[in-house]
């Protein structure tokens, strides 16, 4: 067992733990916005870590895997937040009210964007 296999296996294990925690977060959180919060962060680092681990794992036999893994990493880091932003934007555009725990003060900015949108629809 080479050193690369140990390091790569460690990264893959770490990534799968993060992916599991992301799934648990999606299960436990109360509304769509909080689910997106848990989902985006955990899947980004989880998938990045797993793919990087695969690249390290094969470093001795096929060293080119790490280059391809790097390209995939860049695309994941770039596209994942954009997709979650699109989902969140679609949710507030379709007027899903966010879950709030204690006070109503935290929602002033939300009302403001909803008002802007209603004005746009009327005009």
């Amino acid at each position: 067992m080479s050193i690369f296999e140990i390091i790569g296996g460690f990264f893959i294990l770490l990534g799968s733990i993060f992916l599991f925690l992301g799934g648990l977060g999606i299960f436990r959180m109360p509304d769509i916005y909080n689910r997106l919060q848990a989902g985006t962060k955990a899947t980004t680092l989880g998938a990045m870590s797993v793919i990087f681990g695969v690249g390290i794992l094969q470093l001795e036999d096929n060293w080119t895997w790490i280059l391809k893994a790097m390209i995939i990493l860049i695309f994941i880091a770039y596209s994942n937040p954009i997709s979650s932003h699109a989902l969140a934007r679609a949710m507030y555009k379709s007027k899903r009210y966010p879950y709030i725990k204690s006070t109503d003060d935290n929602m002033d900015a939300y009302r403001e964007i909803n008002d802007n949108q209603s004005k746009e629809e009327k005009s």
Partner: protein
Amino acid sequence: MENLSFSKKAARFVLHWILLMVVWIAFTSSFATQELLVGAGVTALISILTISVFTCCELPVLCPKSIFYMFVFLFTFLFELVKSNIDVARRVLTPSLPINPGVVKFKTNLKTNFSRMVLANAITLTPGTLSLDVIDDTFYIHWIDVKTTDPEEVHKEIAEKFENILLKIF
């Protein structure tokens, strides 16, 4: 930015070509002459076809200083990503689910659309924040644990460390 001089356009074309060539070499992962020649031809064709797209956006002018700050931004970003994952793990694994969600807003100092997009993406991946919308210079953020709703304070809390680096790049 259609009034760019010819030399600047040419510089961007060459830069674009080199970047695509690096991606090509990484994918084919061989230095055989035939592969390199085909790659050079194909990437040059793609650069010519897409040059109008890549000169219309306000992309940063590359110089050693901005490349250095790009690396600074990358490492800040990776550190924040790891921190936010630990934060999510802590919230999810605590039985009482310690969240206090809300929507906040702040105004940014960034001027160009491209840098605002980078800032919005970075905010999405920092601990506990998710960008809902960007209308001109106002960012609307869903915050999982609201500490303050004052725009100035929010700006200091969420965006300042990324914005300072981005202002130096662009």
